[in-house]
């Protein structure tokens, strides 16, 4: 057997920080063949990025080092090479693409300068040749006007464009190994599909190997020849994509696979979750690092580190693979895990205890009545972009003439590409901002006509969960203070009373009440999002707006939060508007879904209906862009082409006509109205599918 392109043997990476050493990655062994696509998957913090950076010895710049093991590229040992030699390999033999294209470019140089810089560094070319090469590269990755783009600065390109440019830069010197570290997480589903297709096209063309790092199993399924699953700094499973999806040999992989929401998962059952949170680097558990969260864990797991074993290139590091393979399914709820968080106390219990001061509770039995809670009529929000002397330079049509209603107790999902106006609609809906035109009725009362004071009152009933679990809590407040703030504002509670209520809330969202006095930075993302939720439900609102409330979280944590939200909804009779770009999750939680495009609501339908029979070409395109976590259903990425136009000058007629495969002259001229096409399904399209 020929020597593989890359062979990593027992690699351990250490970081040194003021005398303390951290080992985020331990004993990594894998290889990559030429022309092969290998996906590295795992939860956030599992060491994927560190692994990829260590391969290029980029960890050296972060006070890290490869403490042991070997990395051989083409038989050449990289771990002992001096930086000067390594520099000739970086960018030339191994190239890298990063997660956030916006942040990966130096903002003060043009795209062209940064491209040619790479070329000139590695290839003996004149400036002209380098430039010509750059133009060529940009054309390859699908830039319509490469010469023009060369002279532009990173901030002048969209995320999708930048990611293409990034790929062009990585390809500049014809690398043998391309490492792509979450290349599409920052992008829209539609763009993501475009980029992934580009990558696989280029791979065929250049015959290079790709190490694709992702936490989206859907992407892995679509792209990978082989997969590597990491957990807490160790590889737990390696195998071909097909076999790994078909028959995971490690409980963690199995759990991950189960916690994915797919288009066909059962909406009525709660999502499967791996309980607990991934451990932090400084306190990795002994033995098998997954054992605290593993339903199969035994004493052996706690004390001994399992080694990768298995046949036919499908290996797993688990003591109980055989048990896993025998059992049809894992136990639904794993037994108590050794984390500090309390065993999930039933929400209903906790809330029942706090019931006494609330008179009206709309239980789940009211769901059927389906009264209209919120009615939105012709809602419009324009932003004026101010020039000098207060002149309006441009008007951004963030939300344009949107009408729909939300029924009591339901979850209304909002989807659409980035910039389509979802958040704006949400903000105007709960009156965090004033609408430019249109009305919002809440329980029949017109919110848009209230004064500030009345608004603040009305806030009791309308709450919001923010996307960003880190930024949405005051870092200087203890979580108790944060969650208790609504009580300070609306109910003058005594200190002990407030504390009691907050502790109940903490319990309700699955946090330990003893953590009242802790600061946000001491919590994980998922835990912080629970804090946000606790704050949102503190005043027993009727309505909660969740704007990308789970987008920033890991899949497994996402599932925990979604379950929590749904449980709360049932207990408290909440009505949600759920904004997300993960379509699968929206489908799972929503009863009805609205699709937005460039400020317009283009389609509204019950969730199942929308997914099964999308009527708008845009909806159909969106759905087609979703990667399916099933390697057996690999398809062509048949997604929408191009990018969303600027909301400052939206296209005439149907705003989607510029990207619509079925657009006609009529679409260019006449804006379609949202019309009912039966079974609560409305669409704004002249030619619904």
């Amino acid at each position, binding site marked *: 057997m020929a020597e593989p392109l890359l062979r990593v043997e027992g690699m351990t990476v250490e970081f040194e920080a003021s005398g303390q050493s951290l080992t985020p990655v331990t004993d990594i062994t894998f290889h990559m063949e030429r022309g092969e696509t290998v996906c590295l998957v795992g939860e956030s913090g599992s060491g994927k990025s560190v692994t990829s950076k260590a391969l290029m010895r980029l960890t050296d710049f972060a*006070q890290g080092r490869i403490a042991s093991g070997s990395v051989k590229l083409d038989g050449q040992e990289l771990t002992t090479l001096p930086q000067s030699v390594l520099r000739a390999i970086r960018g030339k033999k191994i190239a890298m693409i990063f997660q956030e294209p916006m942040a990966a470019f130096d903002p003060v140089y043009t795209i062209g300068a940064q491209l040619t810089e790479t070329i000139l560094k590695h290839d003996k070319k004149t400036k002209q040749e380098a430039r010509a090469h750059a133009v060529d590269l940009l054309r390859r990755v699908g830039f319509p006007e490469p010469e023009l783009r060369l002279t532009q600065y990173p901030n002048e390109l969209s995320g999708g464009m930048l990611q293409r440019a990034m790929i062009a830069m990585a390809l500049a010197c014809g690398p043998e190994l391309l490492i792509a570290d979450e290349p599409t997480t920052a992008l829209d589903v539609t763009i993501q599909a475009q980029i992934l297709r580009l990558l696989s096209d280029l791979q065929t063309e250049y015959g290079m190997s790709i190490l694709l790092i992702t936490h989206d199993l859907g992407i892995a399924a679509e792209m990978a020849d082989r997969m590597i699953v990491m957990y807490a700094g160790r590889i737990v499973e390696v195998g071909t994509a097909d076999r790994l999806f078909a028959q995971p040999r490690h409980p963690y992989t199995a759990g991950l696979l189960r916690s994915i929401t797919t288009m066909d998962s059962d909406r009525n059952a709660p999502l499967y979750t791996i309980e607990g949170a991934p451990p932090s680097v400084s306190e990795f558990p002994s033995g098998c690092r997954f054992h605290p969260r593993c339903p199969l864990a035994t004493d052996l797991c706690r004390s001994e580190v399992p080694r990768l074993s298995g046949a036919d290139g499908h290996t797993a590091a688990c003591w109980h693979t055989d048990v896993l393979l025998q059992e049809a399914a894992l136990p639904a709820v794993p037994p108590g895990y050794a984390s500090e968080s309390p065993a999930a106390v039933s929400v209903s219990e906790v809330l029942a205890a706090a019931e006494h001061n609330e008179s009206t509770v709309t239980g789940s039995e009211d769901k059927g009545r389906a009264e209209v809670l919120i009615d939105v009529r012709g809602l419009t929000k324009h932003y004026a972009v101010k020039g000098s002397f207060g002149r309006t330079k441009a008007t951004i049509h963030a939300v344009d003439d949107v009408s729909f209603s939300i029924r009591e107790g339901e979850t209304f999902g909002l989807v659409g590409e980035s910039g389509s106006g979802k958040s704006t609609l949400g903000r105007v809906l709960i009156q*965090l901002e004033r609408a430019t035109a249109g009305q919002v009725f809440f329980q029949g009362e017109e919110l848009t006509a209230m004064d500030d004071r009345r*608004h603040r009152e009305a*806030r009791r009933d309308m709450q919001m969960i923010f996307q960003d679990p880190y930024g949405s809590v*005051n870092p200087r407040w203890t979580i108790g203070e944060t969650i208790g703030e609504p009580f300070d504002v609306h109910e003058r509670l005594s200190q002990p009373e407030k504390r009691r209520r907050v502790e109940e809330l903490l319990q309700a969202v699955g946090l330990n009440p003893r953590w009242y006095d802790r600061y946000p930075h001491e919590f994980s993302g998922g835990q912080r999002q629970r804090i946000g939720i606790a704050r949102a439900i503190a005043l027993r609102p009727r309505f909660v707006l969740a704007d990308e409330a789970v987008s920033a979280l*890991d899949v497994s944590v996402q599932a925990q939060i979604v379950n929590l939200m749904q449980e709360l909804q049932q207990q408290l009779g909440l009505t949600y508007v759920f904004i997300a770009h993960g379509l699968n999750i929206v489908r799972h939680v929503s009863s009805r879904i609205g699709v937005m495009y460039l400020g317009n609501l283009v389609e509204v339908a019950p969730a199942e209906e929308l997914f099964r029979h999308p009527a708008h070409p845009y909806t159909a395109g969106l759905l087609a862009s979703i990667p399916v976590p099933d390697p057996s259903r690999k398809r062509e990425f048949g997604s929408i082409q191009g990018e969303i136009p600027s909301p400052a000058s939206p296209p005439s007629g149907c705003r989607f006509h510029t990207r619509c495969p079925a657009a006609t002259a009529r679409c260019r001229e006449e804006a379609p109205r949202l019309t009912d096409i039966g079974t609560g399904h409305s669409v704004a399209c002249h030619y619904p599918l």
Partner: protein
Amino acid sequence: MKAVTGFKPLWKADRRQRVRIGQLGAAQLFLGAAGLILAFIALCAVAPQWVTSYSPTKIDPTSLMQPPGRLHWLGTDYFGRDVYTLIVYGARDSLLLGLASVLVGGVAGAALGTLSGYIGGWVDALVMRFIEVLMTIPGILLALAIAAATGPSLTNVVLAIAASAVPRYARVMRSQILSVKHRHFVLASRSIGSTGLRIFFKHVLPNSFAPFLVMATIGIGTSILAGSGLSFLGLGVVKEIPDWGTVLAQGRGYLTVAWWICTFPGLAIALFVLAINIIGDYIRDVLDPRNGKG
């Protein structure tokens, strides 16, 4: 516990660990030294007679301009006063000058900057123009104007220095407020129905203080120096016991014959500024719960 995408800013990483670990690294050593210096200076300010046995005012023609030695560690000045003793006794006014002017200028500047940044709109425009106007007025003119209003005194020097520092504080505060006021936790507080005032005092203000604090720690040093600049121009206050800056200004003519007269007070200022900076950074870290615990 925290998920990290890409490399986190490194200095942050190591600072956090530095504080967490609490082991005796170079940083702790500096901190300790800074603490000692400040404690000593504070002692000088409160009870100078404990730290030296000489009189700061006794004029002694028999020991003029003696170089540093056993009797006079840092030498004597042109009045025959012990330089070390001068520094010790001068600490009080120097501290007063540094702290009071930062306090006055800082409070005024922070208030203006806060007003400007938080309210925005025409208030912002107005305040910022005023700040700019203030910046174009030369410090000496302000010093004179203020001195003229009430006669020359330490208070006036403090006011003058404070007045010319106002723009700096205002600008720092404003930009910080501007960046904090759009943070999500502010929006979150608004979304639960908090009033503007509440949001301001509970969320915006506490989170805007760090850069201001850094600025203020530097400001203490510059204020002492501004005092010496005024003395240089003859606008300072002549007191029985001069502050460090004044000694520096008055002793400069003796640099060639008695370098120690104005070098040691200068060193005293430098050490003080250094210590204040180290402590200032430390306080900033401690005030930030992200660094203080864990």
